[in-house]
């Protein structure tokens, strides 16, 4: 059982964490995540190995991702249900922010 408060405390996610979690809707290992993030962001977001490893450690410790496979020295991770809830809340929040921004857009340009 994950309460709304226990989810909200992770928000807002940093841009890097957000994209890493987006990539982990399917199991991926470290380098796979780096490639996927670059792909889904159209090359706009790049994640360095130091940033990625730090995010993996933290997200796993917080129970937002879980190890799925260990191949040679590469470990794959994917989102837990708690991780999915956190990501969903973040997407909703971004959606609201984006709508609110679009509402004033015409007055900016």
């Amino acid at each position, binding site marked *: 059982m994950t309460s709304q408060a226990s989810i909200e405390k992770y928000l807002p996610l*940093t*841009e*890097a964490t957000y994209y890493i979690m987006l990539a982990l809707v399917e199991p991926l290992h*470290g*380098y796979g995540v*780096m490639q996927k993030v670059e792909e889904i962001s159209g090359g706009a977001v*790049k*994640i*360095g*190995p*130091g*940033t*990625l*490893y*730090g*995010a993996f450690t933290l997200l796993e410790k917080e129970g937002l991702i879980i190890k799925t496979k260990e191949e*040679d*020295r*590469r*470990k794959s991770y994917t989102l837990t249900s708690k991780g999915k809830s956190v990501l969903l809340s973040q997407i909703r929040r971004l959606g609201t922010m984006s709508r609110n921004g679009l509402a004033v857009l015409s007055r900016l340009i």
Partner: protein
Amino acid sequence: MRKTITKFRWFWAWQDETEEHWLGEMSKKGFHLLSVGIPGIYTFSVAEPKEYVYRLDFQNFTRKDKQEYMQIFQDAGWEHIGQISAWQYFRKEVGKGTETEIFTDIPSRIAKYRRALVFMGLMFVLLSIILSERILSANPYTWWDVIKIIYLLIIAFIMFSIIKLVLRIRRLRQL
């Protein structure tokens, strides 16, 4: 036989960027970092000048975690040269469009200095305990005062490092 040179240089915990820059400049002159290990001693191989980018991370871990960590860096094109204390030395050859950063955002850079800070904090506590015990105990050697001064100097160095690291983190937070 491979030609090598050895250099002596002190490296402060908050000066990792200076260290990275220095190693890059050495490579431009044809001296490529071959191994590190003992603080202050650097071995370079002598070869053709090359454009290398050097990057440092601070990580302490178990052997199993280390494998995963090294694999991620290796897959991203980074070569691990060695470590001094828990400072991990990586390098990559620079070409067109090469990704030259291992940390791509401010929060993860802050987290690196935090790890170094925690480590320094532990060292400080540990050495303080040893020192207070030593000072309180009876004087067993004639060169006792020398040891005492060395201990105090080390603790002062660590305190200085802690302050500098805190300032470094604070400056990054303001960005």
